[in-house]
């Protein structure tokens, strides 16, 4: 019932979007129809065996990237296929080719141009420019594809608390750079050409366009912004105009729910992949926000468990890159067909 109440609340929030509302109703009905017989089934079986099967999206493990990482946090792949891993505690960005072979790295600890202080997030534009959220230095640094420093955006905060940029996304059509300010619970938009701030939106809170420790984010093909709102245990979807659209997921430990959502990625079909670092899972949601599946473990036929998954990325070859932070590796998978 609690689950149901939460769903109703979300339905209420989605009331401005009729299509999504219908989806939620259907989803809740399906839950009711499914759950009632299960109560009786559990009573007779008297065992903790799961009552629900979770749809699994199977992935095939390709390889792991390991290169003396120290708690890496995010990953992105350029159009040229280079894999950039933010190796934050080593204050470096390490670059690999599509076969997982190390190519080069750049960055060192410090405050000068090209140096980092525990960077967290990464974004890459179509020109191959690499944007690094240099959190400890309160800035975003921009490099060319070979790691040569180009410029930087020093983030200023509006309430006096030092900025804490944790991720960056580039909306090339709008000429905007979106930067997550984790400690200030907001999003900054900068002009891509002038690197001047356009606006900031968001505030601390639980409402729409409010955040509690936003962390990583992703931009879909239609320029919708998906922001992982960690303590609110949701992914907020903002329109290209910065307006609230929807939230994905909610608080909980069941499917479609989050405890520590960290990373988000959008596949070519608009499905939303969200990593949960505590639960060690990656869940897949329909573009409308409904739970679709969990990344599965082919061998076990169960939900695949990752070690503190954080930043995730899906490239144009349907490869899923998962930063397993505490395991200090990036695991690379080929997304395959789903199974029930």
């Amino acid at each position: 019932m609690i689950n149901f109440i939460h769903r109703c609340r979300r339905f209420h929030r989605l009331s401005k979007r009729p299509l999504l509302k219908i989806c939620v109703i259907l989803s809740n009905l399906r839950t009711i129809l499914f759950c009632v017989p299960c109560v009786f089934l559990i009573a007779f079986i008297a065992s903790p065996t799961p009552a629900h099967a979770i749809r699994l999206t199977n992935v095939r493990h390709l390889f792991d990237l390991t290169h003396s990482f120290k708690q890496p946090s995010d990953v992105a792949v350029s159009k040229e296929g280079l894999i950039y891993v933010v190796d934050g505690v080593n204050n470096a960005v390490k670059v690999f080719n599509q076969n997982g072979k190390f190519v080069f790295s750049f960055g060192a600890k410090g405050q000068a141009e090209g140096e980092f202080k525990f960077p967290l997030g990464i974004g890459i534009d179509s020109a191959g420019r690499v944007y690094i959220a240099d959190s400890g230095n309160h800035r975003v640094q921009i490099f060319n594809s070979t790691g040569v420093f180009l410029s930087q955006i020093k983030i200023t905060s509006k309430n006096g608390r030092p900025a804490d940029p944790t991720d960056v996304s580039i909306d090339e059509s709008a000429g905007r750079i979106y930067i997550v300010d984790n400690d200030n619970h907001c999003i900054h938009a900068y002009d891509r050409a002038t690197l001047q701030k356009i606006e900031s939106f968001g505030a601390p809170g639980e409402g729409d366009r409010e955040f509690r420790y936003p962390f990583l984010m992703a931009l879909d093909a239609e320029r919708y912004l998906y922001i992982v709102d960690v303590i609110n245990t949701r992914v907020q979807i903002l329109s290209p105009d910065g307006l609230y659209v929807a939230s994905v997921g909610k608080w909980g430990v069941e499917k479609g729910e989050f405890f520590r959502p960290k990373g988000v990625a959008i596949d070519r079909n608009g499905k939303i992949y969200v990593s949960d670092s505590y639960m060690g899972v990656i869940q897949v949601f329909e573009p409308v926000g409904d739970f679709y599946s969990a990344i599965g473990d082919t061998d076990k036929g169960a939900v695949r468990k990752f070690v503190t998954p954080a930043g995730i990325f899906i490239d144009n070859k349907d490869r899923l890159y998962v930063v397993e932070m505490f395991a200090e590796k990036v695991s690379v998978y080929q997304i395959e067909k789903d199974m029930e």
Partner: protein
Amino acid sequence: MVRDLFNLKLMSVKYRTALLTGVLLIMACITATPVFPLELSSKRDCVVCHIMWMDDFRTDKETLVEWQPGNVLMKDTQGVVSSEEICYSCHDGYVKDSRDIVWKYNRHPVYVRPSKNVTIPPELPLSVKDELYCGTCHSAHGKGAAPHGDPFGRTAVYREVNIDSSLCEMCHRNEASYKFSNGHPVHTIAMKLPDKLFSMGSRKATDPNKVICQTCHKIHGARGEKILIVSNKGSELCATCHEQQKNLIETKHDLRATLPEEKNLKQQLPSESGPCSACHMPHNSSGKRLWARSLKSGNPATQMCLTCHGEDTTYKIKHTGKYSHPINIEPSSKEKLPEYMPLFSEDGTKNPEGKVQCFTCHNVHTWDPNFLTNKGGKEVEGDASNSFLRMSNHASALCLECHKDKKQLITSDHNLEVTAPEEKNVQGFNAPVSGPCGVCHIPHNAEAPHLWSKKLYGGNDFVTQMCTTCHNNKGAAKAKLIGDNYHPVDVFMKKYNIKTELPLFDSEGNKTADGKLVCITCHEPHTWDPVKPVLNYEFKNMEGDATNSFLRKANFPSSDLCKACHEDKALVDGTDHDLNVTAPDAKNLIGQPVKESGTCGACHLVHNAPNKLKLWARPYGTIAQSEDVINSLCKSCHSKGNISENKIPPIATHPEERLINNVMRSNKESLDYAPIYDRRTGKETSVGNISCPTCHNAHQWSPLLKEKGNNQKLEGNATNSFLRNVSYNNICIDCHGLDALFRFKYYHDPEDRVEKQQEGIRITK
């Protein structure tokens, strides 16, 4: 109806079946439902950490993580809430980036059982496995905070207050009681802690200079082993505060190079412990100074050194040797030593009133006190300028800080830096390298007692051997030999019943009251002039005289030195036999006037005497063939052409065929002493003839007055005139009876002399 319902016999099969099904369903539901410790009351903000309080676990739905029982509000258990995964889920950067601090580097051990060395108080819980875990120290609801709080109100969510590492000390009680566990002091302020320490990660205490656990240790983000703020394998941490001691690195006292296989009390090799901890352990050391090796009883300021350098060790390193500078003694100088030469109490602490220990002279952490970059090296032989000395001993400056009384050696011919710069000690160092002290004395591994640093020479007593090391015909002082005829040495004064204020010595050169007379009884080899220090030393090999020459006492104008033993002979001063009175220009056989030779030296040469008899310093006078040789001494002066030619007795012989014995008058202490001398050798005997000194004591003017002369030439009479005794009790009366009283005065008068006739007595006119 109710009763009927329970009466199964009365019920129809239909009702019974329905009831049974209902009961089974109820029972099945009860059995299938997990036992949850809490009602559905968890708040979301609590569940941010307390995930297992989440209501989802109270349903039958599949969850993406399993519910773990036994972790909800159960005392002394580790719940999921305190698991590392929960901590990391916020501290991975999305709320606070603690990746670098907590997980990149070393941290306090968790998920292990506490060691036996710590005591976990009940306030700090262990896990169900009795292991330490995050929640042992941390709790979001704890009452602890950072030492000074935090302007943002953020704390390290300590379970208990942690002021000046008080939280650490709740378990690490031994380390907190450092005095009892021989550990590094904590909660003390001994110096200004360097800023560098804090930039390395040290936590400031309420007083920034107070040492606390977190001064050296960092619970999370420790770069070093044992959760030290930085690695201390090269003693980098120790050296941050103990900067001067850092000079030890790469010296011989860096055991990584010199004793790489020797383990400390923790069984660590020097390569593991680092150069400091090879000898010092910050916790549970063997004693004072955090000593990391077994320490024998005795003063720690010396015993620490002897751990390796003691004679009983097998290390192939420097030992102190059989003859080494004494320790645990009062300093030689009465003056206060400079601060850089500390003295030590019995417990090894510095004390200006303490005693000399190894550390008084040595700073074991610095090879070269003047050039800190000079590390010496494993194979380098040290010298007086380095060798871990507290100050360079160039020119023996270090030695002289204590041995101030030896300082005058520098301005004397015994400063071999000047007089014999090529002369080497047993270590092979010449005087300019070893210093003026070191060329004769070395503090360790000396050749002989008194730290003698040269090969002994000759076969006489030990002290003479020391002197003849140089003063031999091939030695550095070959120009200053003592010749064949010299004052007796290596003799017990007791044998001659001589008491003296001069020092006497045993066979090892130690002063002793009943010892022997040796060279240094009369000489103080470190002081050229016993009275006035030499200020403008222009040497070399300056010729000495009776006032200097390394004599312990000046022997002119008063014969004080000789008098110290020959008190009765010193009465010659000021008499007619003091040539300073009667013949100041007269020279002895080696060309010295009395001013140079001294009163005694005018007639006796203690070294290089040409004549053996009485070490006579003057040419023997001519005597008759039948005359006693002893008379030739008197006739050196009392003869024609010599300084006392006006004092020549016309006759002074006793009939030679009358052999006389003085058995009754041979006691030198007796008033009637009348020596008889062997005619040929001049030595005292008991049967012989009357000679000059039989009646005359050349050193005392009057037998009745044991006093010096008055520096005036006097004409004598029968009561003085250097006579041994008054006439009524002289040896004459033994043969001549009381007549001798009258005859005596005619002894030197040929006119009145009564000679024995063949038939009887004949009075010579």
